[in-house]
């Protein structure tokens, strides 16, 4: 564990050094290959004037809302398909059709139907999260040991108790890995949607932020935005989800 981050740190340092040497060597113009000093200055500048923080908050608030709505919907749909065969048929069909469809392909339609505001971005996120989450949850529900359903029958649990006391905790490893996929997909979807949908009152999120920087040919600014996107992505994947796993499925011995 510690070793992994240690290695990562070493490699990041090496890569940063190579980058900086390339920039200093003057092979490429400073305009298209800025040095790290310029990039960090741009990063600090954008944080100082508050623009970047506003965009980060905007992006994160949409993605959290999207994840929350999609998770709730996925739970309801996966549970319905667990308990009802006809619901399973419908949900299975919808998932099979919608899952392979990239969110980008939906954007023209969403623009026409919902305009380009927050709702549009939210729909793109929900689309990118809902289907993989349903797939994972359903797999999880269907792979709980048979013995659990016998126990539920024996101890006369009603459906609700069975759901919350057995079905959901028993499939938590699948739930969490579904959420990880959901996060990764929605973070990508969010950034592209923001670029496409633009901003209202100069509030368009991180995707819009780097897009704007490109328009003004502010390459250090573009890189500053990219760094923020990477840092947030990695933090959530490596720290938040790790923490959740350590506190649940790892602690319970359900995940090696």
């Amino acid at each position, binding site marked *: 564990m510690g070793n992994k981050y240690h290695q990562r740190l070493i490699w990041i340092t090496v890569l940063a050094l190579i980058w900086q040497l390339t920039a200093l060597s003057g092979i490429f113009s400073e305009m298209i290959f800025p040095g790290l000093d310029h990039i960090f200055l741009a990063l600090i500048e954008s944080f100082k004037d508050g623009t970047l923080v506003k965009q980060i908050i905007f992006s994160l608030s949409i993605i959290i809302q999207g994840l929350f709505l999609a998770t709730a919907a996925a739970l309801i749909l996966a549970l319905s398909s667990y308990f009802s065969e006809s619901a399973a048929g419908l949900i299975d069909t919808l998932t099979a059709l919608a899952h392979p469809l990239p969110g980008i392909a939906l954007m023209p339609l969403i623009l026409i139907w919902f305009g380009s505001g927050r709702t549009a971005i939210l729909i793109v996120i929900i689309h990118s999260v809902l289907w993989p989450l349903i797939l994972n949850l359903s797999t999880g529900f269907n792979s709980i*040991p048979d*013995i*659990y359903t*016998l*126990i539920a*029958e*024996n*101890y*006369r*649990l009603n459906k609700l108790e069975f759901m919350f*006391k*057995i079905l959901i*905790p*028993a499939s*938590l490893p699948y739930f969490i890995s579904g959420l990880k996929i959901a996060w990764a997909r929605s973070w990508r979807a969010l950034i592209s949607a923001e670029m496409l949908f633009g901003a209202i009152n100069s509030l368009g999120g991180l995707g819009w932020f780097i897009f704007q920087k490109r328009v003004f040919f502010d390459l250090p600014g573009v890189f500053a935005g990219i760094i923020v996107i990477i840092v947030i992505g990695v933090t959530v994947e490596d720290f938040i989800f790790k923490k959740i796993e350590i506190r*649940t499925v790892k*602690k*319970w*011995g*359900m995940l090696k």
Partner: protein
Amino acid sequence: MNSYLELKSINKSFETEKRRKAALKNINLQIKENEFITILGPSGCGKSTLLKIIAGFSRADSGQLLKNKAQIEKAGLDRIMLFQEFEQLFPWQKVIENVTFAVKAAAKNKKNKLSKAAIKKKALKYLSEVKLENYQDYYPHQLSGGMKQRVALARTLAAEGEIMLMDEPFGSVDSQTRQELQQLLTQLWQEEDRTIIFVTHDIREAVFLSERIVLMKNEPGEIIKVVENKMPYPRRLSSREFNQLFEQLQGQLYN
């Protein structure tokens, strides 16, 4: 005749690829209240199938299953099953929570309102009966196989059903631990009013545990004989009586 649980002409078969295979054929059995009875037979003779029918997990093709003369329709807390598999415990719950699960279910079933403290107290009582009160905050994966089965036994006891159904519950633990668990079970049974139907393929286990032994055979699953076992508890594996009965049963099973 004080027949408490009655099985009348129970038949059960399963559809396999080629044919219908009879798993149980004409099973007739009367079980007395607070009796400790074992069902003994080779693997595949239908012991688990029979226990699942009594539990209400599956239905017989024909025949009757009566408790106090009333037909048993479905699974319930009056007949709690203890399985062989370690995974019967919920890994996401601590040992104590696995037991309170049964206490809560039983209370709800009897429409009793119990306080949190009362639930915990009851669960702890059963945990201490299986001598695991010091492990209440462990998670199942931190326990040995024998300890897991003791927790499962505590949970079964905590449901406070009249009848406990046990499907080779000690089949997956080492022989030393198995003997400890057998001893514990006979002690607990003597202290409390419970009917135990215990399935095993281990003759010594049957002789050690029960007052009556139902012998079954394979193909089709049928009862050969019901043998009384009047040896006083606690029984000793080394006693002459024990070994006589052991040999008698061995002869009857494998002839």
